[in-house]
Each structure stands twice: as structure tokens, then as C-alpha cells.
């Protein structure tokens, strides 16, 4: 996520107080710059940030009276967002999922990271070094165990999914904290990952073409064969799930299966 806006006290309060009290189900707004502040829009604009279930932000309205200002972060698609109220040295972070009914289970974005086998080794090593640090950066550990930055990043993604580290957007660093849930189960029970592994186990993936730029494969579905393409320009699949979400919720099980088959770090035994 990157920072999209920063408001002073007055504009923060003005924006939060102007939020609608209730909205109809599935109504989304775009939040765009207007004057010195932000306003709600119904149009997807270039600098817009999409927020569904906007009444969730009303939580900040009472706190905003005491705040110095507000920073807003969002991912490149502008789906999930984080809203930080600043109180001197303290920050209050409110993170919103893309939709009210969607959770945070990486929303599929870290599924590929969870699939990696190599990260298990690194994960155990890194976990051993967690000592409630308030700032941890993956790059700091790259030299330790002959691991690439990408591998280290994946290991931290997995730790995040397990609830063992959080990420502070304003500092751009992880921090050690442990949520009171057994989130290691995520990797075991996440349906898409499970199904992707099943596809690989059943030899349902056939690589058609593989170059440095693209990988094309066929994956057997129910009564049909899906075509998967992995490339720098973006991954795609012909299944209805991918057609509907276009990657905004992470890879579908077919793309994931092809990733598992083709990427050395993700290869299964």
C-alpha cells in the first residue's frame, strides 16, 4: 500500500462528518481529492480510492476531534485501505477490507507466497529471531541465510498470515506481535490453496509453452479445460472466477496450480 492522502485536523473532521450515516448494501464510493481535503464521488477517478461499506469509517469521527490529522493508504488497485489518525507520536490504524463481507486472509494476494516450500525453512529461522521488535525489514535478513529478498519477503508474508507480524505502513516496516489465533491453519485450510495443490497432485496441469516472458498451460476443470497464462503483464485464466475478479482477489486455483508447478521455489515434493 502507498500513501494516497494526508489531511490536517479540520479537513479530517469535515470529511468524516460528511460521511453518509447509512448506505445501501453493496454501495461503493470513491474518495478523491477536492480542494484541500477529500470528498466522496461515484466515479472511478485516476486518484480515487474505492471504499465499500463506507459507514465503517464513521468509527474515526469521534476520535478525529482529538487528532492532528489523517493519512490514507491504499494498494495499487485501491481496494483495501488503511486510515491512520495521528495523535502526536501515536497513531490509530483502521484497516478496511475491499468489501464488508470480505476478510483479510491475504485475500488471495499472498497465496502464492503461502505455497512456497522454501519459505518454510526461512520462516522457522526468522520466527526464531522475533523479539517484539517494533521495526523489522526483510532486507536486513537477506545476508544471514543465503536467501533472496523475494524469498525473505514471502516468509514475512507467511508470518503475517499466521498473525505473528504486522506491517506498519507509515514506517514501511514489519513489527512483531502475536494474534491470539491459530492462523497457521490458514495455509492448511485455505480452499484455493488446497484445491490448487489437489490439481497438481492429480496431474491436471499441462504446460504448453514456457519462455522467459510467458508460461502457457492447460488445467483440467469440470467438463472443460482452462487456459492459463502467466506473464509480466499479468496472469490470466479462462475460468469464471478469474473472469469475474480479474486477479483483484489474488490468483484462482488454476493459476496457483500452474505457479506451483512451474516455479522452483514453489515446487512440491
Amino acid at each position, binding site marked *: 500500500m502507498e500513501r494516497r492522502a494526508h489531511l*490536517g*485536523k*479540520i*479537513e479530517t*473532521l*469535515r470529511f468524516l*462528518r*460528511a460521511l*453518509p450515516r447509512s*448506505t*445501501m448494501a*453493496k*454501495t461503493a*464510493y470513491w474518495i478523491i481529492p*477536492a*480542494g*484541500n*481535503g477529500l*470528498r*466522496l*464521488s*461515484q*466515479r472511478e477517478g485516476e486518484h480515487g480510492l474505492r471504499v465499500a461499506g463506507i459507514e465503517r469509517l464513521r468509527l474515526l469521527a*469521534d476520535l478525529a*476531534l482529538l487528532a492532528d490529522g489523517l493519512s490514507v493508504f491504499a494498494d495499487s488497485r485501491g481496494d483495501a485501505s488503511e486510515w491512520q489518525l495521528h495523535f502526536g507520536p501515536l497513531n490509530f490504524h483502521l484497516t478496511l477490507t475491499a468489501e464488508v463481507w470480505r476478510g483479510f486472509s491475504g485475500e488471495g494476494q499472498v497465496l502464492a507466497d503461502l505455497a512456497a516450500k522454501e519459505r518454510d525453512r526461512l520462516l522457522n529461522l526468522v520466527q526464531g529471531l522475533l523479539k517484539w521488535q517494533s521495526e523489522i525489514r526483510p532486507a536486513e535478513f537477506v545476508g544471514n541465510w543465503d536467501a533472496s529478498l523475494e524469498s525473505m519477503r514471502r516468509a514475512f508474508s507467511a508470518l503475517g498470515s499466521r498473525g505473528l507480524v504486522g506491517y506498519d505502513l507509515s514506517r514501511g516496516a514489519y513489527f512483531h506481535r502475536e494474534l491470539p489465533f491459530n492462523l497457521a491453519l490458514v495455509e492448511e485450510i485455505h480452499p484455493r490453496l488446497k484445491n490448487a495443490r489437489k490439481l497438481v497432485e492429480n496431474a491436471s496441469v499441462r504446460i504448453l509453452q514456457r519462455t522467459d516472458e510467458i508460461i502457457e498451460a*492447460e488445467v483440467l*476443470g469440470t*467438463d*472443460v*479445460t*482452462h*487456459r492459463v*497464462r502467466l506473464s509480466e503483464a499479468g496472469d*490470466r485464466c*479462462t*475460468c*469464471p472466477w*478469474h*473472469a*469475474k475478479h*480479474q486477479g483483484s482477489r489474488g490468483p484462482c486455483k488454476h493459476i496457483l496450480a500452474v505457479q506451483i508447478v512451474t516455479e522452483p521455489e514453489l515446487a512440491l515434493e
Partner: protein
Amino acid sequence: MPLSVEKLQKNLRGGDVAAVCKFFEGATEPERRSVALTVVHWCKLLALNWRGGYNKKAAAEVKKLGPIGNWYELMPAAHAAALASASLAEIKALERRGFVPSEAAVAILADRRPPWIDDYAELLCEGELRRFGGNWKQTRALVRAGLCRPPKHENYVLEALNCIWPRYEQGKEPPKLGDLLLKERDWLESDFWRLFEVDGNGEVSLANCEKYRKSKDTWTDALAELSRRAVLPRDRLLDASLEALSRDFIQFRAGWFSRFHEALVPTSAERAERIDVYLRLLASGIPPTVAFAANAVSIVEQIKPLAAAKLIGALQPALTAKGKAVAKGALQLLEGAAQREPNSKQAICIAAIPALLNEAPEVQKAVFEFLDRHGDKQDPVLRSKLQELEGAVAASLKPRLASWLGTPPDQAKGRAVTGEMDLPRKPLSRIDPARAVPSITNLDDLIHVAGAVLEEPANPTEIERVLDGISRLCDQRPEDFERRTGPLRKRALKTRDNPGADGSYKPALEHGLAMLFLAWIKGANEFTERPEGLADGQNQYAFLLHRLMAISRRVQVRSAMPLLSAPTHLGGWIEPCVLVERWQEWQKSGLEMDRHDQVLALLRLSPEGREQALELAKDLSGEAGQAFQFALGHEHSTGTNAALWLAAWRSREQQGDLPEFETKHPHLGPDAGVGAQYSWKAWSERREFVGHAWTHLQFELTTQPRFPKQVDDALLPVLFHGPWQTSEEGKKNMIRWAAQLWPANREAIFAFACQRLEISVDYADAMDREFCAYVEPLAEPHTELRPMACLALALCLAAQDSALRGHGVDGLIAAIAEGRLDVNELGGAMARLLDTGINKFARWAKSLSEVARVSSTHVRAVAELLTRTLYGDPTKAPRDISAFLELLFELLSEIGGKLDDQRARDYIAGLPASGRTARLSRQILALSSPIKPELLLDGR
């Protein structure tokens, strides 16, 4: 002795509850259990008959088994038998288990004494809390008989609110609520108090009872009376009502408790004892609760003044509340403290300053008046605090702020917008390269985009790309074509054969696209329905479907050709030179062009680039070629093909009459040879229902000439006025796509929208989500805001639903930024609507203030618009006209202007001369400074 199943069945079929009770009297548990299956089966059969009344599957089963016509009358005896013989789990599984009359339930359970009576009582309380219905009487009977303990479930107290009353008997006076409560003494002394702890729901609560029961015998009066008679302890009632206000109840339900507290008429001494609770309630998030608490505090202050320090701490949340009345009430409380404790004035003033965060100018004015009375203008602490909140101060109060900060009024900060651009800015050309729509060039991309479009056809540009892609690539049939298109084919079949979520309508757009995709993939005709049938009338949606059919006829036989009407640029526009190339390719091929494709292509021609295109189009032949050349600007006589020539004419002249065309092709309908003329009227109507009265907007719009009975299915400009005999439910995507058919003239779409938006002013509805598609084009850079567009915009800005209103705000902001706004046209429409006197149009003040925030250009435009809106009859002004005046006053203060417009001045002068409206009228009319160039914000 075992129980006789035959005798039991006879009793059940007779429906005699007393006989059933007698049947089981004295039976042992094993005896009871031996017939339980029979009883449960019978109960389920009766329930099946009940469901058969509304469920087709159940009805079929009932028919097979033989219906039981009087199932309703037999239910009490059946459930009594279940209570006498079934296990708790079996009873739990039965539907409508509360059918047993209370006396019978008591008798049965007193006789049977199962170990689960407490659980049964809890079970009776489960289920949705409804206004009519509930098992409270049966539960109470069991508790009174000592058979079980009072259930813990909150419905045990909430159901009492309605169920305590006996069944209504015509002509008989119902008993008093107080007397009914006295009969439930044990409940009154214990469980009743939980009514102050549980919220209830939208149907059942103390607040609902008072408002909707329409009885003079209210719970408030009954409880107050019982308090006076010392049946209910007064102190406990006072405390419980205050505690209820501290809970998280919604405003409507919380209101009962504050009113009840006041109905007990607490003495000053009683209030003084509870001062700490009132002070805590000042922090409530519910404005009426805060007002209630402030009133109580002010009463206490009269007999026992509070220390300023204590008051300041308690008032902080109220001073910074959003509501005007709350903040002003808090300031009044501080006033007393400031007068009593002059030594604490600085602390009190510092406490008051955060009230400037309230956006209402009248609150901010009250703050400055407070500071002027009690503050020291030389105090650096106060000045520093004021400086922190400088940006929050309303424009009209900047001079007062300036007097505190010691800066001249001219230098007080205005709308210092960071990075504000020069406005208005001219929008990009319709055919600017930045707006180009890239074509799909290969089969893989086509399959991918087609899949996405079939799942969610929300983007018309993507739909058009797919149509164009299929049109040009339909001859590409590699060996693995069937495999590659397999998933798309499967999905298209499912979409085509799926009638929609509830079976009540077919989503025409998805249906049409699915049939086209199948025609392409299978190479066969897949269109099984008439376009007019799918589109529910002769209209532009039918035209769209005709177009899809035409494309499908060609792609079935793999005749790959460019789609004439495929947009080259966003918004549905076609670059003229590109169309000429396409047309030439068709001409060269010798194939017959589809007329829907031709008509649409002509209507989508961009005005830019026509001269160049005409140069290239010299070799176009035939009547169609002549029509195209005519559209580009060459002169030809109107030909015989009405649809084609109308498209060509309307491509050149979007509005107005076409005499030459009308002569050649008369009476074809609105926007054929005679331009559509719209006339409308709006008025208010008072309606009443069940004791509630409200004012409703009535709206009527007529189009001339009238739409003929039969219209050629390619006469697109006329089809926009055609009937659409269905609702918008689920059709947002199709509405959005159709808006790109004739991007140069959307007046017919906006006219239709106005008729739908009428209801959106009155109330928010799920259909507002679909209506949004009608007004999305308002924000597009090349949409002309003509009369119907302006009317739609005015209605949209007053919509109750925030998202729909947001479309209006977006549209107005964009129109001002791009110089498209005709203030007279929009202001004129608003003036006429304002004359209906409907107060809902006061929502414009909120919408327009959002628009004004964007830039100084928007401030000026909104000020002009407000001025133009005040051209009507002031005697018909809505009740909340003061909201308009306040916004106008602030905007004029901001730009340093005065109201020069005489008609607007006359309107304001003619408004009722009382209260806030009168004060604001005087202020506006008294504004004396003309606009100083150096004060214009973009000049700083």
C-alpha cells in the same frame, strides 16, 4: 395400560384440545412416549398443509397425500398432544409450536412434569420478535403456575409490550394497562426492569409501542401512575431510565427513556442527586439525549451551581458535537459558569473554542460572541488556540476572527486550495489519442475479455471491444478452438438458459451477449427470442439486441469484417476517418452492410475530424454512401431509407426540427423530422396513511410528438422515446450501454430518468442503484446539459439516497470544471421545483455546499446558481429555505460580493419575515461590498 393410538387419532382429527388433555391425563412417561411418533407425524402433516399454501413443492406433496382443509383448526390439539408426549428435541423440531392454549399447556405440563420445562419456556421465547405474535401469555402462565423459572431470554420481557393486552373484542373497552400490569405482579417486580436494559427491534420496543399503538393508554402513563401509587419505586425508575440512556440504544428507542424520565417530573433535588449521571450523558452520541442532559444540568445549576472545572470537563464532547443545538446548548451552560467564576474565564474560553469545529455558522457566531463577552483579545493563549482552528471558520465570520488575531480582514485566509488548476478547463477532444479504445487483436485476448464481459458487462467500452473483436476475428478457427473456447461456451450456455435469480425476469443484456457468443463458438443461430420481447418494448434496448442478432448472423458463417459502429474512442465516439476506412472495406467486399450497424455508426460520429474524413469518402457509393457523406457535411437530397437518412441528419443536427426530412418521411415520431419537445410540471400533494401525513412530489412529463404505435426497429433516435414495460431491476448495465448509442444527444434518456427520479426525492429505495446508470453521463466531458439533463441533475441533487445524490454532485462539479454548466437552464429548473414548496429540495443546500468546496470557480458558479434559483414565488418557499440563504450568504462572503440580481433580491425580500430566514435575508440584502478583484481567491 397402553394408550390407544386409535383413540388418540380420533381426538387429533377432531381437534379437541380438552379431549387430548384428558387422553394423556395420568399417563406415565413410557406410555406417552409410545404414541409420540404418531403425534409428531401428525404435527408435521399439518405443517406441510400450512406450507402448501405458499410453497409449490409442499403443495405437490400435499396433493399426493391428500389435503387437510381445516389444518389451522387442528393445530392446537396437535401441539397439545406433542407437549404431552414428545421429547423436547422433537418439540423443538416442530414448526409453529406455540399453538397450545395457555391453560392446556399448564394442565399438561403440571400433569407430566418433564425435567425440561425450564428449557421449554426458553424455547417459547425464541424466534423473531414481532409486533403481532409471540408466546408470552403461555410462558407467563407456566411461570405463574410455578412450573418453571422465568426465562432469561430477553423476549420474555419484550413480548410483554404487545402481548400483555387481551385479544381485541369489538365494542368492549380494553382493560387499563396499569391493571394488566398489576395482574402480573411477580413479573412487574423482577423481570419488568429488564425493559430498561434491552433495546428491542424495529417492531417491538417501548418507543414503537408509544408511537404506533395509537392508544391513549401508554406505557409511560401506566408506569408513571404505578410510581405514584408506590407500586414501582420512583427512585429506581428515575435511575433505570438514566441508565438506559447510557446504553447503546439507537436514537429512536433511546428517546422513550428520556421522555419517560421527564414524565416522572423529577424534582430539582432529585435531579441534583443525579447530576453526575446527567453530566456523563452530555457525552452521548445521541443529540436528543445530550439536549435532555443539558436541560437537566441547567435546572440543577439553578439550585446548586457547578464548579467551572467540572462543567468544562463534562461539556467537551457536547461543545464539539456535530449538531447545532447541542453545541449551542453547551455554550449556554458555559455562559453561566463564566459569569459565576470570573477567575476561570480563560479556561472556560479555551474550552469554548473547539466549538468552532462545528460547521454551522450560527454556532461559530455564538462562540465569537462568547469570546467577545468573556475573553481577552490580548491573551496569547486564546489567540494561539484560535489560530489553530482558523481554517474551520466560516467566510462570513472571518472579520471577527481577524479582530482576534490582529490581522486586517482582507488577509484572513480563504479557500487556499493547494495546487488549484485554472478552471474552467476545456475537455480533451472526443477523438484525442488519450481517449482511444484499443482493439482486440488476437483470439486469446478475445476469449479473455469476452469471459470477463459475460461475467459482468458493466463497462460498455469493453462490451464494444468484444463485439468488434468477434466481428473481425470470427474466421480464426485454430485446431484447438473448441478446447480454448470451452469454458466460455459452458458459461454462455448457463447464462442463456438461466432465467435470472428469482425467475421473474430475464437479464436481456447478458442473455443477448450469451446468444451472440454461442453463435460465434458453435457457428449456429442461437437467438431464440424476439428482441422486442427480450427488451420489453420497442425501444433502444431492442435496437441493441437487433444489432447483436445481425452480428451473430455474420459470425455464424465466419464472415470476418470490421464492425462499422465499434467506438474508436471512449464515450462511444467514432473517429470519422476510421469509419470511412471501415465503410470502404465493406464496399470493396461486396457484402451487405447491416442497417443497424450503419445507423449506429452514423450517430456515433464524432463532430471533430469530419472535414478530413469527407475528403477520403469521395468514392463511397450507393444510397448508404450518400447518407454517410451527408453526415460528414456534404450536401445530398434525403433518400428513401428513412432509418439511414434520419441517422445521417441527426448526426449533423442533434436537436430541433428537420423540415426536409419531415417532408420526405413525415410523422415518424419524436426526434425524427420533428425534434422532441418536453414539457413538465411538478407539484406537491399531501398524503395520509394510518395517522401519518407527508408531502409527496408529483411530477408529470410529456413528450411531443407522441411515439407512434409501430416504429421501424432501426429508427434509433425515435426508439429512445419508446415504451419500456418493465422495471430497472438488474438492468443497470444495459442502461449504461444504451447511453453510448447516441452520445451527442441524451435528452431522451434524461427525460426518462426524470420520471424515475421523482420517487428518489421522496425516499431511498434499492432501485436507486439502478437509476444511477441514467445519470452517470452527467459527469462525462461531452454531455451537453440541456433542459432534460438539467432537470435530471436537479432531481438527482435532491435524492434521498447519498449515492444517487453523489452522481448529481459529481455531474455538477464536472460541468462547472469543464465550462458546460448553463446556470440559467439548471437554475430555472431548480426554481420551478422550489416553487412546489416541498421541503426535500432543501437537500440542495447540502449538495451544493459539497460542490462549492472544490475550488473558487465552483464557489462562484454555485453562488450564481443559488441566485438564479431564487427567481420564483417567495410565498411558496419551502420551510427550510434558510439553508439556501445561509449557503448563499457564506458564498457571497467568501467571494466578497453582494447580491446584485434584482429578481433574487425581490424574492428574498418577499420571504416570511421571522426567525432565522428573516435574519439571513437581512444579512444578504445588506451585503454591501462589490467583488474586489484583489479579493478573488485565485488572484492571491
